[in-house]
């Protein structure tokens, strides 16, 4: 059951399993390692992690699927999370999200055909003083006053 992970990653997962009182507690740290190395968590990788931690694949999948940030499909090279909560809304966040999507020709949640960008609607990012705020691959940016300028900078 280790086909989904390369040997280095598998040994990293086993090392994490030894850091906590239970192997299961290494599940989130292990999933973050997988996502860091391949950008998303494939069903094969998820099964391999489950196997290394003595969990049933369905058990690990039930945990992984609860979390917004674990990608279960490949995303763009740059993942733009746009805060859509009320403070950003009051500062132009909805217009920013619409403008980003229309410039890239996609809907929120989708990835561009060339694989460069994913745009997602996010709940409050804890960046209300930077409204309207975004994260690009989990790095904070804001206030974002121009979708055009943001995309030009990321290109």
């Amino acid at each position: 059951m280790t086909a989904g992970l390369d040997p280095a990653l598998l040994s990293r997962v086993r090392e994490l399993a030894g850091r906590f009182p239970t192997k299961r507690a290494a599940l989130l740290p292990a999933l973050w390692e997988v996502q860091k190395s391949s950008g998303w968590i494939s069903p094969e990788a998820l099964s391999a992690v489950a196997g290394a931690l003595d969990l049933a694949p369905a058990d690990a999948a039930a945990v992984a699927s609860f979390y917004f940030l674990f990608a279960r499909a490949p995303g763009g090279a740059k993942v733009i999370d746009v805060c859509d909560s009320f403070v950003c809304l009051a500062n132009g966040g909805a217009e920013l999200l619409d403008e980003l999507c229309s410039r890239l020709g996609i809907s929120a949640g989708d990835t561009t055909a060339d694989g460069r960008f994913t745009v997602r609607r996010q709940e409050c990012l804890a960046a209300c003083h930077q409204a309207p705020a975004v994260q690009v691959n989990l790095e904070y940016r804001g206030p974002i006053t121009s979708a055009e300028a943001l995309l030009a900078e990321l290109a």
Partner: protein
Amino acid sequence: MTVFEPVLLRRRGLDRSFDLDVYERSGGYRALRKALTSLSPQEVMDEVSASGLRGRGGAGFPTGRKWSFIPTDAPVKYLAVNADESEPGTFNNRVFIDADPHALLEGILLCCYAVGIGAAYIYIRGENLAGARALERAVAQARARGYVGGKILGTAFSCEVHVFRGAGAYICGEETALLESIEGRRPQPRSRPPFPAVVGLFGRPTVINNVETLACVPDIVDRGAAWFKTIGPEAAPGPKIYCLSGHVRRPGVYEQPMGTPLRELIEEHAGGIRGGRRIGFVIPGAAASTALVESELDVPMDYDSLRKVGTELGAGGIAVMDETVCIVETLERFARFFRHESCGKCVPCREGTVWQHLVLERLASGTGDTRDVEVLRDVSQQLVGRTLCALGAFAAAPQLGALRKFPEHFAAHAAGRCPLREAMTLA
């Protein structure tokens, strides 16, 4: 403007304030050294109890009392640090961790010494990657200098600190869901009893404290409980980091005494409302609090004063909305948030948050009617006290408060018209 010497944010302006050398030069780890060399664990706990420190996550429970619930004879105990800050309008932990991760670490170590804990887990929301990196770096630096790990400062006290990243789920800020998340289970709240103080992380007695609560501890140990009590009101002493956002001139975090009047925070510290407009409403304690109107802004910002006017301090997330912002639209966002973040374990919350959002979508867009207002009221009332955790009550509170305070806005929306947009019809 009232002159207040910042405590928690005093290092924020220093160059490389996050670095161990800078922290030590400005008095850092002095309290830990003092505790380990001259105070018993009980004396540290007594000092924290005497300070009157109350939990900064929003519930306001006395911290020393919480620590005292942990059975002293338990062989293994844990500290779980709640850095999952996700409630719309709140960002104080994030700013604090970026600026001064060692102060959090020192507070953690003092708590662990007082309670006899050998391992702490800092649970930080997955989006805050920069914060996790800052904490990892601080733990590594502290370990290299003998503040973390075995035989700290050459004493018999040993303590491990783990930085544990969440992955995007607000419910993980609920203390038992947080424990489930660390344990690698679906993060759904546990039923209580047993309480975490008895059966917590990995089945062991566990203290769960907010970042800002623990950040107060080094100064309490260093300067004493009597000093701490000179700040703020007697029933809720100490400094507080308030977040100000929305339509203020200077959004950001402001440290002031607990109990600082809301109007002073908005007008003097955050520079008042921008664009020459007037205040429409203010959310004083993030998305689970009832909105206040202009005439209520002299309220002191502490747990008890805010409860007296029917709202909550929460973690201190103040969002100021100018007169162009529609309360019904804001409430639709709150409802969408709680719908998205309900874990699905309790039926009243799983179903109720969906219905709240459905009727608010209709009302906000002008396609609803008076029955929707009644459904919102009925469903919200049924959410209170019927769920395992506080999320149900959090989802209900801002809606019930607004239904009471802004009936004319709901009535207008039910008739397809927003009072702020006289010229247009919504539907």
